[in-house]
């Protein structure tokens, strides 16, 4: 009986934790391929633009893969046109974008 109680408790705790984690993340991750990111003076410009954009949670630059990775807060999404516009404003051209739920 004691063993069953423990197992049930563990099950509910796990489910609650999983639910709360996904609840906190919630937003969308955009992986944008952008050429010419080798120079930080330029790459930082993209990072700065996204950092100061409403709803953006984090920005990472993957130099090896030439990717700008933007994660948004829950409920915040961007369409491709908006992403292209932000990248263009920073002086770059977005080659492609993929997105996934966080």
């Amino acid at each position: 009986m004691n063993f069953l109680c423990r197992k049930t408790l563990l099950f509910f705790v796990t489910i609650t934790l999983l639910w709360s984690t996904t609840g906190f993340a919630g937003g969308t991750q955009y992986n944008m391929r952008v050429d010419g990111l080798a120079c930080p003076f330029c790459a930082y410009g993209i990072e700065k633009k996204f950092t100061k954009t409403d709803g953006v949670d984090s920005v990472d630059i993957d130099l090896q893969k030439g990717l700008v990775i933007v994660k948004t807060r829950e409920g915040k999404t961007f369409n491709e046109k908006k992403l292209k516009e932000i990248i263009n404003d920073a002086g770059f051209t977005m080659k492609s974008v993929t997105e996934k739920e966080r």
Partner: protein
Amino acid sequence: MKTILKTIQWLLFIVLVLIGFTYFFWIPSVQEPAYALEKTWGKKGSAPGQFNEPTGITVKGNEVFVSDGRNHRIQVFDLEGTALRQFGVNDLERPMNLTIAKNELYVADYFADQIKVFSLQGDYRRSIGTPGTGPGEFTIPGGVAVAENGDLYVAGFTTQRVQQLHADGSFVRQWGITGEAGTFGGKLRYPTDVALSKKGTLFIADGYNDRVLAMGPDGKLLTKWGGPFAMNIFGPFNGWFTTITGLSVGPSGNVFVADFYNDRVQKFTQDGSFLNAFGIESSGPTHTTIAVAEADDGSVFVADYANHQIQKWRPGK
């Protein structure tokens, strides 16, 4: 058929002559013994002595000050690389090129659009400028220099200008046309840094024009250099650049230029005569030499962006 062959022969001849001219007139030879890499220190991380993208460097006496970009702090070392102190975490967003004047450290903050000033011990003193593109305002300042009278010279990366301001931040004048990148007609193309000589000559790293501009105290162009005619022709040869990200005038009076995409420092006299070049080649995808400073004993320190480290170079004998 014979005519075609003759035309090809002539074309080849012209190409060879042009290559000969280019080599003779625009590729100077090294004028000094080679610099030797004495040591490097640091690796990627956030602990003292580690870096996450070093982006600026300057030297004062026996201390080396480093902009630790993504750790948004300044780290201070002795000339052998021993970590002495760090500061700025709460005041800096993305520190870039540095300068020291009158025992104060001036930091160009890329994300804050301001110049941040600290004591050399690390106490925050003040911020200069507000974000914007008007006179006395900054958008992405890349580097700063300070004159004897306290005037500031600030390179605005995306505003395509270098501003001169009084110490209180009031506008004096500017080089370049705000927001208009160009190579001719007094325009700049993404200036990244500035430095002053003791005589008041202003050196501008005209970053994406791949050239250095030297301005006299009257604001007029004294000379410029970087590839043929200093007109945005980039390349890997001596005296040519491929994107300048930083420059400094050392205690020796020479001008040291961080030639980013060529992974090297280039050393010049103040009139632009090429003296030497040295650096660590990058294994990609980014590059090594982003900023450079000379110490009183002639050692040269390089902020190595790709390898998250500092390089120390010793002059050749």
